């Protein structure tokens, strides 16, 4: 991991990898959307509404994955003082917030025809909403505190403490009685979803994940460039 600690080396690797990552993202989205809208049959109970699952579930997966990445990067920043760890955590947050919002909004659009309600305060929905608030709070810390080292320290603590919410989201449907259905893909005793519906879900899940990788690397590149620019401006103002 130390070989990526140098921002210049990281930028060089990111610049080389990004075109391939974007190409893979486009191909996976094309295959996944074909499977979601054409290949997969309607559900025997939910009818065509089940197709919302193909955009709702990957968004929810990604919202949790991105927060886990932020918490891990924050822990690495504290323990190893890795120069890119804070950059990784800070730039992941807006991406995670968008996917968390999409999980909540598409879930609401799925809930209305299936449950008869846009929103219910059950454990899964509420813990997901808390995750969205954590994202907003984390972004607000970086925006509100001008001193970067102080903002970084507070943001790291929020990211690590907030990680407790991730297992709560995952197991909320097992620990409490919820209107939200229990886990049906990632289960110890195997998936309960038929393969004809599962494969587009897995392909789109992978597509969303690779999309995150592409967006995150691009965003990290911007942040490194912005920090370099700020340092140069400070150095020049010091010379003047």
């Amino acid at each position, binding site marked *: 991991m130390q070989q990526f600690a140098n921002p210049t080396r990281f930028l060089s690797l990111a610049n080389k990898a990004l075109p391939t990552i974007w190409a893979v993202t486009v191909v996976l989205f094309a295959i996944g959307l074909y499977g979601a809208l054409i290949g997969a049959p309607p559900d025997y109970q939910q009818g065509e509404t089940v*197709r*919302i699952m193909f955009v709702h579930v990957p968004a929810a997966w990604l919202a949790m994955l991105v927060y886990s990445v932020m918490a891990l990067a924050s822990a690495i920043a504290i323990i190893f003082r890795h120069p890119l760890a804070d950059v990784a955590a800070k730039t992941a947050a807006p991406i995670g917030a968008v996917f968390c919002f*999409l999980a909540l909004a598409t879930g609401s659009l799925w809930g209305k025809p299936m449950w008869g309600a846009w929103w219910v305060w059950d454990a899964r929905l509420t813990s997901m909403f808390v995750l969205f608030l954590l994202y907003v709070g984390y972004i607000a810390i970086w925006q509100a505190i001008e001193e970067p080292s102080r903002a970084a320290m507070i943001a790291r603590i929020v990211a690590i403490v907030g990680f407790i919410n991730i297992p709560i989201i995952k197991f909320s449907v097992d620990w409490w009685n919820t209107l939200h259905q229990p886990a049906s893909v990632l289960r110890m005793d195997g998936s309960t979803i038929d393969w004809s519906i599962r494969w587009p879900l897995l392909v789109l899940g992978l597509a969303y994940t690779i999309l995150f990788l592409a967006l995150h690397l691009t965003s990290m590149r911007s942040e490194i460039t912005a920090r370099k620019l700020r340092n140069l401006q400070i150095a020049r103002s010091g010379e003047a």
Partner: protein
Amino acid sequence: MDWNADHAGFVIAAYALSLAFIAGLIIYIFNRDARTRKRLAQFEKPKK
């Protein structure tokens, strides 16, 4: 996909919303990246 099925509007809305937000996110990140790199290039350009 049967576009005339019951609740098809909810499916269309979910996909349209996802597309709009993901496209917006991509545009925002690309614009920021291009703007930052341009500013750095201008700053590093030797003054005449």
